[in-house]
């Protein structure tokens, strides 16, 4: 009978239970706080970018009345470039300004006289040999290059070492590197008044409570950054890189006719983005970009070929997929290769 009384007592006190809805919100808020704490300022992912470098001149092209913009960014009378261009776009996150690593490595190839930019992502965990320094993940290369004991990180050096490593890994000569920080990505998106991005599958943010449905949507800088940072996706960073390429396509589709807004975008780009070229100047690069009217992604790395060495996991490229693409770029025959392999491109 004591058992019965116990059951009754428990049942009677059920109404003590607080309502769950406010608690649910409190939990979510606490999770966000703790995650933020956990990851600190190490924003995963993203800065994908290409961004401005491609989009801004792209927008310029359609503008009859050109706004006043900073001299160095004006393609103006830069000498024409009559050779193919390969540019590495490095999306870097900053760890509270103390260190940088490249989370996104995107090769942008523009065939000679072409109007299409081809985008190839390299996985950030790609196993690479840094010339003269040994084994690393591709994304870390930037860190090794930029880190200066007791001094501010040197981004130009990080970009240089990463470019050298990409060349050693893929055999591709790079004409320029474009380093995009988070701030650049976000500022450009906001300056453009938001960018429309079309994604293949729904993404649920682990950093905010937002859900980004599959399909097209217009996002502001904050939302875009949040979406592009997500890498807990079915195919992890591959899906994130795919979202990054979708963002670039969205940027290229941005219709910017408002000169004020455009000027803002240009300035935003100039702030968060560094360009370093070998034998090519920023205005020249922009001039090439100005001629681009489409961007297509080439998929070379959606198969998982992980390898663990000394308890560190690395990704490897599938040479049957990547080598033909690299070779075609080297021989300036990518346009032909794409025509022959339409399934590899989107």
């Amino acid at each position: 009978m004591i058992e019965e009384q116990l059951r009754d007592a428990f049942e009677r006190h059920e109404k003590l239970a607080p309502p769950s809805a406010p608690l649910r919100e409190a939990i979510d808020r606490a999770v966000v706080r703790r995650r933020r704490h956990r990851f600190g300022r190490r924003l995963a992912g993203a800065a994908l970018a290409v961004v401005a470098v491609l989009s801004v001149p792209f927008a310029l092209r359609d503008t009859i009345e050109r706004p006043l913009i900073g001299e160095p960014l004006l393609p103006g009378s830069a000498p024409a470039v009559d050779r193919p261009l390969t540019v590495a776009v490095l999306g870097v996150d900053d760890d509270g300004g103390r260190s940088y690593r490249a989370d996104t490595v995107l090769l942008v190839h523009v065939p000679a006289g072409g109007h299409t930019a081809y985008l190839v992502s390299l996985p950030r965990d790609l196993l690479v040999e840094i010339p003269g320094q040994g084994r690393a993940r591709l994304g870390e290369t930037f860190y090794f290059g930029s880190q200066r004991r007791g001094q501010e990180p040197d981004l130009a050096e990080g970009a240089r070492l990463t470019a050298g490593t990409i060349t050693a890994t893929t055999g591709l000569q790079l004409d320029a590197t474009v380093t995009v920080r988070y701030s650049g990505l976000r500022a450009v998106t906001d300056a453009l008044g938001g960018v429309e991005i079309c994604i293949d599958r729904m993404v649920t943010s682990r950093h905010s409570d937002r859900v980004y449905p599959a399909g097209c949507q217009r996002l502001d800088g904050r939302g875009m950054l949040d979406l592009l940072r997500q890498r807990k996706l079915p195919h992890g960073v591959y899906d994130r890189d795919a979202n990054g390429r979708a963002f670039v396509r969205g940027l290229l589709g941005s219709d910017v006719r408002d000169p004020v807004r455009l000027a803002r975008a240009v300035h935003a780009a100039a702030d968060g983005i560094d360009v370093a070229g070998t034998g090519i100047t920023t205005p020249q690069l922009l001039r090439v970009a100005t001629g681009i009217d489409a961007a297509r992604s080439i998929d070379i790395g959606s198969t998982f070929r992980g390898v663990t060495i000394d308890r560190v996991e690395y990704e490897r490229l599938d040479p049957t997929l990547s080598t033909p693409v690299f070779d075609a770029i080297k021989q300036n025959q990518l346009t032909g290769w794409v025509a022959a392999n339409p399934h590899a491109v989107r």
Partner: protein
Amino acid sequence: MTPLTYEEFADAQLGAMLRYAVMLCGDPHLAQDLVQETMVRVQLNWRKVVRADAPDRYVRRMITNQYLDWRRGSWLRRVLLRAEPDETAKAAHVDHAQLSADRDQIWSWLARLPKAQRAALVLRYYEDLPDAEIADVLGCAVGTVRSSISRALATLRAEMVETCP
């Protein structure tokens, strides 16, 4: 089949978890803190939780462990650091006053039991779990579950004899 998401789980289970925690703590504020603390960890480690055979039992085990681990200092701190009292607390307060007016003796005796014994009672007489599952939640042997329960019942019976002879 798509795996259970945290959101689905919380939709379905949060209320039950709160009730379970109330039975353990005997106090709505502590129960809320207990569930919040646990569910934050559940959400942060969701992939691990969802791999368990029965996620709801796994989470009950987390709540139970958290409850058993709470030492005076830590929960006192939690109570003192609570943010502004919300409506939840007010509503619960009324009930509480009313209930204490009823002088619910069994409830107050429960508060004096060792935590593990109370947890065993809650699992058997509130959650209606078989002893094997209780043992799983408490992380002990079935025999230990049975002896805790019989010891707890003996204590309650003794109290009862004392009060109403």
